[in-house]
């Protein structure tokens, strides 16, 4: 739960990014606690992607600061990268490698020993029920499994924070739910989950959500708090109301 653990794995203060005269991310500030599932919502073009790129150390902020997994993203980007996992909607796994080869590759990239990789591979394959497909090329397994596998690979090295960028796009409704149970299991072990989604029902599964409009965070709280604050029946309603107001302005 939110503040009980106390320790913060993401601290963002006045984070800003400008491209020329355009301000893509405008002074956003928030904290995420260790082990929290944090939903990062926003319309296309609201600045989500830019913000995530700064948080994972791929893009330098124009102003403000952010600490992820205990390291400053501007000055210690390499340490940040070592302590996080990242999974994007489509490009996480190598489709032309087998399941085992992908796991071994990522384990190697993050410096896991051969023994650890072997152990993790067995665990992961058992949990995902992929034993029969371990030597199959990733492109041949169904999308839902692929996404679950991509997630498991992203947390293979026990990162303090894992960033998931639209992890469930196009996935069938049952697998989508199984995916979220994986997220919960991972969060329960203390890994912070930072997730974006276009499925508004998934926003309800998060401990807290933020809604970004035109580069700024306009709402932040637990799903229940936000629904109460905006007198809405669902996060979908909250989102649509805020995003529409932003576009009109």
């Amino acid at each position: 739960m939110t503040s009980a653990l106390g320790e913060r794995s993401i601290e963002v203060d006045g984070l800003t990014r400008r491209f020329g005269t355009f301000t893509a991310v405008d002074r956003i500030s928030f904290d995420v606690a260790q082990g929290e599932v944090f939903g990062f919502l926003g319309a296309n073009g609201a600045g989500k992607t830019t913000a995530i790129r700064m948080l994972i150390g791929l893009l330098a902020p124009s102003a403000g600061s952010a600490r992820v997994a205990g390291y400053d993203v501007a000055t210690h980007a390499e340490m940040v990268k070592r302590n996080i996992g990242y999974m994007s909607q489509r490009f996480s796994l190598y489709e032309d490698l087998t399941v085992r080869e992908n796991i071994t590759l990522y384990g190697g990239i993050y410096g896991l020993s051969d023994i650890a990789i072997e152990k993790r591979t067995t665990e992961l394959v058992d949990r995902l029920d992929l034993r029969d497909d371990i030597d199959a090329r990733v492109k041949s397994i169904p999308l839902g499994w692929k996404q679950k596998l991509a997630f498991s690979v992203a947390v293979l090295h026990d990162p303090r924070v894992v960033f998931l960028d639209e992890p469930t796009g196009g996935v069938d409704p049952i697998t989508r739910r199984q995916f979220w149970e994986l997220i919960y299991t991972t969060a329960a072990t203390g890994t912070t989950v930072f997730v974006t989604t276009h499925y508004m029902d998934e926003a309800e599964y998060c401990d807290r959500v933020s809604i970004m409009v035109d580069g700024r965070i306009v709402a932040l709280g637990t799903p229940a708090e936000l629904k109460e604050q905006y007198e809405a029946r669902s996060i979908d309603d909250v989102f649509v109301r805020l995003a529409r107001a932003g576009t009109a302005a």
Partner: protein
Amino acid sequence: MTARGAGAAIEAEGLSRHFGAVKALDDVSFDVRPGELFGFIGPDGAGKTTLFRILTTLQRPDAGSARVLGLDVVKDFWAIRTRVGYMPGRFSLYADLSVEENLRFFASVFGTTLEQGAKLIAPIYEQIAPFKDRRAGALSGGMKQKLALCCALVHTPELLLLDEPTTGVDAVSRREFWDLLEKLRASGLTIVASTPYMDEASRCERVALIQRGKILEIADPRRIGERFDRPLIAVRARERMRLLEALRAHPGAGSVFPFGDVVHYTDARPGGDARAIADAVRQDLAARGIADAEVEIVSPGIEDVFMALMQRRGAEAA
């Protein structure tokens, strides 16, 4: 209700298509009435794209037949091509051309002009007109979607085929896009669209639920709950993981799925009295130490139906 026959905008009978060992489409039959807004709902890999490519005559079926606007998709493909508007999945426009240049180009490809198509696209075009000199690559996701729609409509087609037009688009833009489709439908255009988002089903007059190349069900989304053969219980509690585990451990539990801020529960056996099931669940949860559980009887939505059908098929296959 229009009977199957000369009046249908699309009639498909036993369409099958495989790629190597993969059956992309497996004996698919349906019909679309003139003026209807018809949806194909299903996850990636369900066969939606193959189906659209067959309907637009880009690919040919291995078996079965389909008539689009009364024309055979294999024999009369040139005639079909002039009369349908098509937006492929993950379609992008020419990023280095301006909004207006893109439109004029697609108009000329179909042997018409932007001016001739103006009437049909006017309600959409007025939203993007302020940016008409902007390069398409610099538009926001929602605007790109609208421009792509204009390009598919500029030759005034009689049938509009949209393959996953809202994939990767945010919830607000998706709503606006469906608002536009409803406006177009009101003007008499027949529209067939596919989507992986179950919540978009309610915008269609009829939907076909599609999964692994097979149509699971075709129904009016407002009445699809009728296809659900057992009571549905929604449970709310603060600790969702514990709630999930407790419900799965409940004797006679069938499906237990999180749905937004609640969990949907059904018994394994069909039928049964809703109130009795709800009471049993409430008592059992209290016994398992979940004191704050709120239990209510709800009517099933399209996603409930889809998952139930998926599970039934999975069970049949096993």
